[in-house]
């Protein structure tokens, strides 16, 4: 029975739902952790986790796609006089992992036909998983940029990149394979996620996102502080898996 096959596939999926680190990343992480174990990792942290989960091993994005995402991250939350931005915070690593994982593969989405366009109110009705949509959209945008500017998106000057991103956001640029607005909305959402998710997911590296806004992470207990109205909270941010941030230099 067809439904039985769908059920068994879904059940297998549940057993492997959302690994925090992929096996590949985990091996790299373990190796660098043991190398650094003596000097850098505080004893209170689980030994298998490194200080950072940065990994150069691509899981989904190929080299040109990675350059696209790096460039987009650098414009969506730029490095400026307020401090580092999404690129420096490792958001491209985050997006690469997310697209390779259950989110990118739409593993819990209803993906049965028939397929129809639907209304704005009915939401996403594309046949593409997020990973497929990214791949089509990035190709389409690079084609557009090559036609308009004779350069790939990543090679454009920042002002032109901003114009292209604005064109996608407003739907003024017509992409052949995917609706531009749908892609931009998902990209912006994923950049925001990577900037503000726990650093164990690869973005928000060194708590760049949380430090920018003053979020201390999952600190767990504010019984004493909650009625201290107007008083800044000064303890450094913590991660679920990567320990606490180094205290700021006085």
């Amino acid at each position, binding site marked *: 029975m067809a439904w039985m096959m*769908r059920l068994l596939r879904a059940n297998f999926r549940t057993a492997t739902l959302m690994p925090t680190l992929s096996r590949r990343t985990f091996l790299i992480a373990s190796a660098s952790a043991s190398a650094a174990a003596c000097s850098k990792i505080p004893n209170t942290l689980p030994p298998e986790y490194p200080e950072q989960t940065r990994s150069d091993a691509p899981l989904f994005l190929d080299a040109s796609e990675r350059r696209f995402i790096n460039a987009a991250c650098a414009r969506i*939350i730029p490095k400026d006089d307020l401090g580092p931005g999404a690129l420096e915070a490792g958001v491209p690593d985050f997006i690469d992992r997310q697209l390779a994982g259950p989110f990118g593969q739409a593993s819990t989405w209803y993906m049965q036909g*028939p397929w129809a366009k639907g209304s704005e109110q009915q*939401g996403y009705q594309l046949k593409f998983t997020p990973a497929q949509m990214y791949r089509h959209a990035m190709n389409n945008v690079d084609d557009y940029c090559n036609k308009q500017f004779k350069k790939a998106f990543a090679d454009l000057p920042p002002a032109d990149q901003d114009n292209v991103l604005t064109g996608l*956001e407003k739907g003024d640029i017509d992409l052949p394979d995917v609706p531009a607005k749908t892609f931009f909305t998902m990209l912006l959402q994923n950049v925001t996620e990577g900037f503000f998710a726990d650093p164990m997911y690869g973005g928000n590296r060194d708590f760049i*996102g949380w430090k920018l806004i003053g979020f201390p992470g999952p600190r767990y207990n*504010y019984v004493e502080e909650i009625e201290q*109205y107007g008083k800044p909270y000064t303890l450094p941010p913590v991660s679920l898996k990567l320990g606490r941030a180094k205290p700021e230099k006085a």
Partner: protein
Amino acid sequence: MATRLKPVDAVLVGFGWTAAIIGQELTDAGLQVVALERGNFRDTVPDFSPTQIQDELRYAVRKATFEEPDRETLTFRNSTSDTALPMRQLGSFLPGVGVGGAGVHWNGQNWRFMPTDFKMRSHSEQRYGKKFLPDDMTIQDWPLSYDDLEPYYDKWEYLCGISGKAGNLNGQIQEGGNPFEGPRKREFPLPPLKRSASAMKFDEAAKSIGLHPFPCPAGNASQPYTNTLGVKLGQCTYCGYCEWFGCANYSKASPQTTILPVLLRKDNFSYKTNATVTRVNMDSTGKKATGVTYVDAQGREFEQPAEMVILCAYSLHNVHLLLVSKIGKPYDAESNTGAVGKNYAYQMSAYVDVFFDEIINPFMGAGALGQVVDDFNGDNFDHGPHGFIGGAYISMWQTGGRPILQHYTPTDTPKWGGGFKKALKENYLRSASMQIHGGIMSYKQNHLDLDPTYRDIYGNPLMRLTFDFQKNDLDMEKYVTDRAVDIAKAVKGNRGYNVRARTGHYGIVEYQTTHNTGGAIIGDNPSNSVINKYCQSWDVPNLFVLGASAFPQNPGYNPTGTVGALTYFAADAITSRYLKNPGALV
């Protein structure tokens, strides 16, 4: 071929709040009870531990504890002239899955409906005249009153250890509580939570313009509490991970923290997980349920025979099971006949974000930590000049400031780029959002039935939701949103505010609320409802349907308190009357 299991006295479909309550009551009465849960077992340790659960991406954004649409979802359209399409990913609402159900991931905002909410039609017609209500509005009175439910609200609140301040004790209005609430017999079991910075500012502003702010009754324990079953809850730490998370600290009332430690030890209670009920089985007369069929994780089918079948699934799934099991007459929106699927309703949320001079530390919070005004809810104000019925509460929540989903920036700042980054930095610690939490009436055209095209993973037709916002409710929401703006303007040290109004068509994409109601509604006769006042099926007396699917329309309050009270009310009738003489209770 389904494997037939040993019969039990009662089978519960689902294992969330209503199943935990009815399971506890029926096993106390000596029955052999089994609960069938489509998800996994979960408990505070290890599933909600503080080294795991405080993960916004996994739980709130990627929705790890909710229903997975690839297994079961619904199709949706705004009107009967559209073709419904599947809800391919979760959005507007988030049904829970797993032991504890949505009781694991709720905020703990715990309300009683007002006395007039139970007489919505007769009260409105009496005060404003029959012509005041639109022709397509199908609201109806409950077959029971606030006074009937009051002892059961009390029982529920003392089970959960609700933190709050009474506003009406036996008719005497109490300072600091909600002066509009129905009379309660005694105080809340726990005092209110500590107040957040944003709650203080809201309180001051609301009072300054003559409104009546009070702390939201909270299923987050303000102090250590031993409940009526002897189960202990711990003091809330204001960690800010309630909604969409399990509580690590035994502080949020859930089946796990209030009932399961007692229920799971009983010899006459058992449960199965990864057991998805696909049918209620009937005998040849069509008047008696013989049990249910479920599918396990391996896709094997089992038949669980039972003397009583009690639907304790999420409201939408209760209705779906009735429809696929062909129990009762399906509602037909064209002819306005039939009952199963009728009077689906929802709620409306608009927001006014306020930007303050001072920091308010939004990450210190709790799910039900907020100051509220009820001045514009229900029939607490004269609707005559406005032309609509119903209302909304206005609340200033401080639920945790989790930064992916709770960062507020002024609407005139960019949504990305350097301007966005600057706005994030300037506003995260200095902003909070008011919610305008409004009711929705029921209408002839808003309903549930089975989709003709799409099927779920078990081979059943998906349910089809036909729903749109209607003028009465949009007018209501606009009126109360304007009142929230009055409060925002009165906040001292306010640098500005955003109005995120609710307008236009209902869309299934943006998260709004998991307060889906109706479809198996309660009523005083079989022609206008699916169940009688004891939540007993009119058609099949040994079948009971619990939960918010019973609500004939949706008032402006979160439903859980009334779901709990109604379940206790039904449990009382079953144990005191039905078990002695099984048959129709009305």
